[in-house]
């Protein structure tokens, strides 16, 4: 019988990461879409880095940064009693950074595709930027929001390299499904590896299928 703990841990990690990213992404995307800041492209490039960077590279740098041997890690440990290497908290931070472009890119392109006049019309009707974002902009990019949420969730489930570098394989703390599969294969338990892999495959496929179905519906309804 397989251990269910990694499945639960994976779901928890994906859920927490997605929630944090949604909160972080909305103001960030608003700023990226409408600010006239000169070096915005640099920020955009940094956000997209995890798309091309090997996860082990990101994991390696985070490992160095979070290590209690070094400045930042030492500071966290001394002042907040927080250790981010080989802990669930560390996994969350790594996942947030690693999945950032998967949340940002769909929402950002959704905002950029909206006619600027929608926002301007709302302003001329006396509405603040915040009201405009919440009542006009976001409801008109539902499909992009959904894509961002689901892609982030699915991508976090599929993490391996970053988790391995910074989390290792500590049961109930950092041993997520992808790591569990690796461990099972290492110890020649092909049956267990198969079950884990099958569950991941079926789960990720069904959420992606759902998102495409819903998006098609949105597209039929909306002009944009």
């Amino acid at each position, binding site marked *: 019988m397989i251990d269910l703990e990694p499945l639960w841990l994976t779901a928890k990690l994906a859920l927490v990461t997605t929630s944090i990213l949604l909160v972080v992404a909305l103001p960030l995307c608003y700023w990226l879409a409408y600010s006239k800041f000169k070096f915005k492209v640099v920020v955009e490039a940094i956000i997209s880095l995890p798309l091309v960077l090997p996860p082990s590279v990101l994991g390696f740098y985070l490992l160095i940064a979070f290590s209690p041997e070094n400045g930042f890690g030492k500071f966290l440990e001394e002042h907040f009693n927080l250790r981010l290497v080989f802990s669930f908290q560390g996994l969350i931070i790594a996942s947030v950074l690693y999945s950032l472009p998967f949340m940002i890119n769909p929402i950002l392109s959704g905002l950029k595709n909206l006619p600027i006049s929608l926002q301007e*019309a709302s302003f*001329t*009707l006396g509405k603040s930027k915040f009201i405009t974002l919440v*009542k006009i902009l976001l409801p*008109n990019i539902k499909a992009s929001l959904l894509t961002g949420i689901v892609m982030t969730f699915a991508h976090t489930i599929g993490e391996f390299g970053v988790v391995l570098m910074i989390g290792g394989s500590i049961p109930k703390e950092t041993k997520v499904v992808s790591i569990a599969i690796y461990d099972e294969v290492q110890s020649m338990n092909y049956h267990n590896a198969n079950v884990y892999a099958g569950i991941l495959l079926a789960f990720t496929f069904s959420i992606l299928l759902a998102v495409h179905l819903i998006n098609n519906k949105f597209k039929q309804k909306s*002009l*944009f």
Partner: protein
Amino acid sequence: MIQFYAYKMLQTSKGTQPLNVSFNIEKGQFVSLYGNSGAGKTTILRILAGLTNAEKLLIEVDGEVWDSSDKKHHLSIQKRSIGFVFQDFALFPNLTVKENLEFALQKNDNKKIVEELLELMELESLQQSKPQNLSGGQKQRVALARAIVRQPKILLLDEPLSAVDDEMRFKLQDYILKVHKHYKLTTILVSHHLPELYKLSDKVIVIDKGKILKEGKPNIVFSEQKISSKFKLTGEIIEIIKSDIIYVVNVLAGNNIVKVVATEDEINNLKVGQKVLVASKAFNPMIQVIE
């Protein structure tokens, strides 16, 4: 009373060009801005609304300074008493017609105005529809109604009639006049449709390459070049026929073929396919109702 002055470098298809205009508008006037595209008409509306900045500017409305160059005064877009009808209407796709209007209500506004406008603009039967299910003319009416919910002092219309056919255009002009009078608005319309300007405006400001060319009543402004007992048509030569000792040149102007008599000397300069001007002076045109 609106006092407007702005100086701004504009990026146009022919390079940069300064917009440098200054004008006054009386309360309750219907003013049209007329000129070629790229002349800076829309920019003027946007500067007045606070949607676009300018290097130098002074905007004063009823004695209140909305904008000044020294940045001491800058009223945010939200606080300006304006209604803006955008060229693409900018209706909110996630809201119904009624919700689009209600969105414009401020905190303590009476909701009655929404009902009143729906009735005035004959939108009652459409109030539960989403904008994407409306025709161009219906969208335009919703946009107009929405711009008036706040009961602004100034109504700004950015070529709102350019996307509809002539028949709809006439009807919508009536709606615009109706709200202009009913809500005692000061209205500024951007347009390059002459009949429209005649019908609607008290005053026309002609803008060319960022400068004011002329301003005044429409019949005075356009009397010199546009309206006279002289007919001018531009068209294309489609055929030159020899008939005895003279020639008949068929010119296609719009949907009409005009036959013009020409001598052999004149023919030498003409070729089929050429763009030509057909002009005639000193005759009595007849006028007939066609609708």
